[in-house]
């Protein structure tokens, strides 16, 4: 014994690892490198500078950050309230229908975001489905409801709902039935069973749902563009502008790096504490 052999697991994982190195790690490193390049330059061979990061704070671009984070936070809070009853229902109420309902919630995921948001545009626009109906039924003429902060939030809640719902369902499914019944048997009221048993035990799933939807919401861009016009500019939009109109790739890169740092730290902190095997169903 003692021959050097790659473990079976490593052999299987190698293609994925190599691909992610080339397609995920490397580009992100490129972005980091770019962020230290002189403003408005191209290529990565120039002398490193912190000018871009300085620019972010001087020009108040970081306010866009604040908006992105705030909206993501509000979205996630709303989603938690909306999704928990549904997640609960998936596991304990719907019975045979759970699979169909899951399917119904899954289908929109595969339609491009833009198309789905566009549907909302058609719904809320002047003479659109909602306003047009109101006008023809009641005779009231409203202006388009689009291009408000509320609209953007609606869009975000809409788009990121499945990402909160599915991990939460996994979490609720993790609460063993007999534990709940035992608690009730020992005198706990329905609310107490929920607070003492169901909530803590479904936490891992709920937290992953929170994390996933928050991270994705921070990176959202379509909702504010399509439904919000220019009413808020999220950080992703600033990044895009820097890369396209402004032709200032290093600045865009610096903004992206900051976003990545925020997102990355959150993800690592949270994922660290979870044993994925248990959550995903290893026996």
């Amino acid at each position, binding site marked *: 014994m003692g021959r050097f052999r790659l473990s079976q697991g*490593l052999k*299987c*994982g190698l293609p994925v690892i190599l691909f992610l190195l080339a397609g995920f790690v490397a580009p992100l490193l490129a972005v980091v490198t770019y962020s230290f390049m002189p403003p408005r330059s191209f290529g990565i061979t120039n002398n490193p500078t912190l000018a871009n990061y300085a620019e972010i704070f001087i020009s108040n671009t970081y306010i866009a950050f604040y908006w992105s984070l705030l909206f993501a936070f509000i979205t996630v809070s709303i989603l938690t309230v909306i999704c928990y009853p549904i997640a609960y229902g998936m596991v304990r109420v719907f019975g045979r229908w759970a699979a169909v309902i899951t399917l119904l919630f899954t289908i929109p*995921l595969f339609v491009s975001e833009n198309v789905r948001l566009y549907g909302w545009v058609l719904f809320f626009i002047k*003479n659109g489905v909602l306003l047009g109906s109101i006008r023809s039924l009641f005779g009231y003429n409203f202006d388009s409801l689009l291009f408000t902060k509320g609209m953007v939030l609606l869009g975000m809640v809409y788009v990121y709902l499945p990402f909160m719902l599915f991990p939460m369902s996994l979490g609720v499914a993790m609460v063993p039935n007999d534990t709940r019944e035992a608690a009730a048997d020992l005198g706990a009221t329905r609310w107490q069973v929920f607070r003492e048993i169901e909530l803590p035990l479904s936490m891992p799933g709920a937290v992953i749902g929170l994390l996933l939807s928050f991270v994705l919401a921070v*990176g959202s861009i379509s909702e504010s563009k399509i439904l919000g016009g220019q009413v808020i500019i999220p950080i992703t939009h600033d990044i895009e502008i820097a890369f396209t109109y402004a032709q200032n790739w290093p600045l865009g890169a610096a903004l992206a790096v900051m976003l990545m740092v925020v997102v990355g730290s959150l993800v690592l902190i949270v994922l660290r504490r979870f044993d994925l095997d248990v959550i995903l169903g290893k026996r």
Partner: protein
Amino acid sequence: MPGLNQRNRHTLIWAWTLAVLIFIYLPAASILLASLTSSRYFLFPIKRWGLVWWHKTFASLEVHQLFTTSIIMALCVTVVAVSIGFFGALAFARYDWRGRSFFQKIVLLPIFFPQSVLGLALLLWFNALGVELSWKTAVFAHLVWIIPVVTLVISIQVYSFDPALEEAAFDLGASRWQVFREVTLPILLPGVFSGSLFAFLLSWGNFPLSLYTTGADTTIPEYLYAKMVAGYTPGVPVLGTVSTFGAAIVLLGGYFTIVWRRGRRK
């Protein structure tokens, strides 16, 4: 369990869920309605119904080109993602090895990542490498986030796979290749099937990654977006509806296939 309020509670939960489902499908309904007008503009309630824009869209050469691009990309993504993701799932869920928990977290990272930022990062990277942007670079971009998703989906199936089955087959005289072909692959096939569905649909409907990495080629989502921000085009609701229904049909078809196959084994 206190049964007095349970019925009310369950009714409420049903009602809430159905309400949310309606909320989810309102946009799809709006688009469908918009596609059924024969007028150039969208006015609700619809005065002039007609399928004229459906005819025009399906006849359009530009649309055919878009379909071809999107489908070819989705097929490439599916094949590569499932091949790599299958083994990734084995590494994720089956074998015990030293780097495993680190591997699990690394695989998840691209999923927990804002896609627009990923798209831009890839744009930068391709540029730094001097690679010309085309649908091929977009396929690569799609794979960066779809391979982890497929890995995860197949892993869920792998978790319930009993390794004793492979050992038993080996013990009964099968060669390593026979074990894989007769036992491992057939049992994991449902997971592979789901993974393929996911890969195809996620690539088909992807926008942020395509936007930055397709270069001169265009996918359907990109086309729709360009038309959307330019103002109202009647063709957009048609394509949008096709997209939605297409995804629904593929998914439902996949689901019923799985159910039918499971039923066949009885």
